[in-house]
């Protein structure tokens, strides 16, 4: 069986989650590897959520927020941009493939973009193969 990655998505309620809904409403098909957590704003995303997602076995993590300047909370995504950029640098220096972590600004009207990003990202993660580095296995193996 071919490798089907698990991709964790974290989407802001106002733009990307709504954009994802729009992709559905317009019946745009994309791979089913993404599982989305809805948060109110991309700025809610604690860097440790990203580390944890990889520990839980996510092969890729996709964060979606409003375009800079369009944040429902004015400036949330501007903070998120900096904080997630640092998160990515940390993952990269630790030796994880930085491509496994992606941040995209997807507005509520960009159902197309959502479907396209998920399709692209899923293909990219398939290419990269399973993420084994941060994934927790010790606890599981011994049970």
């Amino acid at each position, binding site marked *: 069986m071919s490798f089907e990655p*698990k991709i*964790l998505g974290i989407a802001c*309620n106002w733009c990307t*989650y*709504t954009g*994802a*809904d*729009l*992709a*559905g*409403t317009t*019946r*745009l*098909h*994309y791979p*089913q590897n993404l*599982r*989305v*957590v*809805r*948060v*109110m*704003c991309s*700025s*809610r*995303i*604690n*860097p440790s*959520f990203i580390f*944890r*997602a990889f520990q*839980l*076995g*996510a092969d890729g993590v996709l964060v979606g927020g409003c375009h800079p*300047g369009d944040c*429902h*909370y*004015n*400036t*949330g995504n501007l*903070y998120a941009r900096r*904080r997630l950029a640092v998160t990515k640098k940390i993952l990269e220096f630790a030796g994880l493939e930085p491509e496994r972590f992606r941040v995209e600004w997807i507005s509520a009207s960009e159902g197309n973009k959502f*479907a396209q990003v998920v399709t692209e990202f899923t293909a990219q993660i398939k290419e990269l193969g399973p993420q084994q580095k941060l994934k927790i296995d010790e606890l599981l193996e011994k049970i």
Partner: protein
Amino acid sequence: MSRIGVFVCHCGHNISQTVRVSELAHFAAGLPDVVVAKDYRFMCSTPGQDMIANDIREHRLDRVIVTACSPLMHEHTFRKVIEKAGLNQYLLTIVNIREQVSWVTDDIEEGTAKAKALLNGAVYRARLLAPLSSRVIDVNSDVMVVGGGIAGIQAALELANTGKKVYLVEKNSTIGGHMAQFDKTFPTLDCSACILTPKMDAVLQHPNITLLTYCEVSEVKGYVGNFDITVRQKARYVNHDKCNACLACTEKCPGKGISGWDEGLIKRKAIHIPFPQAVPQRPVIDRDSCTYFLKGKCRLCEKVCEQKAIDFEQHDSFLNFKVGAVIVATGYDLMDTRPLIQYGYGKYPGVYHALEVERLFNSAGPTSGKVTMRDGKEPQAIAILHCVGSRDKNNYEHCSRVCCMYSLKFAHLFREKTSADVYQLYIDIRAAGKGYEEFYNRIIEEDVKFIRGKGTRVAPSADEPQRLIVEAEDTITGKFVRLPVDMVVLSPAMVPRSDYKEIARLFNLSTDKNGFFMERHPKLAPLATMSEGIFIAGVCQSPKDIPDTVAQANGAAAEALTIVSRQKMELEATTAMVNPASCCGCQNCVRVCPYGAPFFNEQKGVSEINEALCKGCGLCASVCPSSAIIARHFTNEQVLAEMEGLMEF
């Protein structure tokens, strides 16, 4: 241990086509803590809702998961359902298997697998949900309106007429705004003053309106329903309680200042009222042109004032009051066209901008309504240049919306008052409004010369030194034209007030790239802002004409009324709170919050959150290094658990 009920919706075929719904329900039944799992054709239907309510009672459920369409569709519906059945509405979790599963795949295996993963995540999350209760606060029934132009006047009157007390704050010494500067209004050509001054007077007379002219808002604290406002009353040097508006002072005053009201076309006295119908009819002293303030001697006004109303000792003072809602209607400025050197405004006396021309037409204006230029002569040829600075990628991309129409109005008035040839240089005429196209057609009939092309340059004429040459490309004939004229009228971009940043900061408004205040939603909430209880009306939101402005003002008044007509209101429960035991006092939350909700309690050395100000974005929780901030309904535990559930299968 939780008792979770899972309700899987088929949504007719919408979901069941690509997700095996009964298998999903069966899967759910096998998950820890799930005590009942069912699937049904339409969960949002009355029988569906009843089923959920019955199961809550029968199985003593304490968490409900509805696996159906997007939470943005029916979260509200199902919250009501479980609340009616006795469960706190926040104990509901929606799993979106329609928009984000069944509609985006045609593979039933994939769809079912993904739906299971999402459902499992919801079960993990549901276990950790906590009941939340909305906080109920008292609402102050007063409203503040900022800006005394037509928008502010209209909103204030509407609100006052419903019996609400209104504070109308205007930074000038009179209300009326730009509309009071106009002579005629398009397309009906009725007299601006005739329709506006009765409203201005009504404001003054209204028992429910506190008119605060020559005032600026200096501080806004609090939150919806309970704003604490501080207003700075600028020193007028005239005691308005004593003044009886005899205006003897203005006759004797030797000081001369530039009349802002008349767009600098003439001078006015240092002690002055801006125009005869000003409201209130009370003069103020302009320090910058007052002989006494400049030279230390004079005080002629004081001598002539029988009421002893002149008070050179006056200082700025501050007023405090509380309101429940605010309407911001700060209006606009015209773009400063001096930097556009190709048009020569400020350099060639024959070049005017639109508001100057409005004053020239006005019988109460500097020329008493005669169209004479700065040199006193009547123009023989006039060019009106549209879209100066607007619809221009180098300056402002937006269309200022009213210029086409007022330019047509100008053409009409020029034709009426002079024998000049009038040229309209336009990109295209935008006449979308009731009676506007008809007005345009009427002006075409009035022998106005239309040249479709943007004026590119204004230069002095080489042959006739007093005249100007306007250059343009006529895009209809494709020819380059050079028009010798006496007067050039620029229709500049409408831009936000120069102090928009300060206003945005005070009221926590966001602005678009040009500085116009952002509405909460461009279509569905055009008058509300992201700051709860603060509304916008008129051109401060975007350029618009008088009818639209008035309509917005009425709308904003109605929106404000929906808040202040209640005595109590419920605040969103999904706010953040600080666990003081974990707070390390780093104040990151205080630094980042766009709403100023967190504050530092020096005494305890920990941050606290004013939940009334909190919008629940969760930014503070993510910048909190010691995880002391609990973003309710999106707590760290809840998000981590959901992630774990999503990744399990």
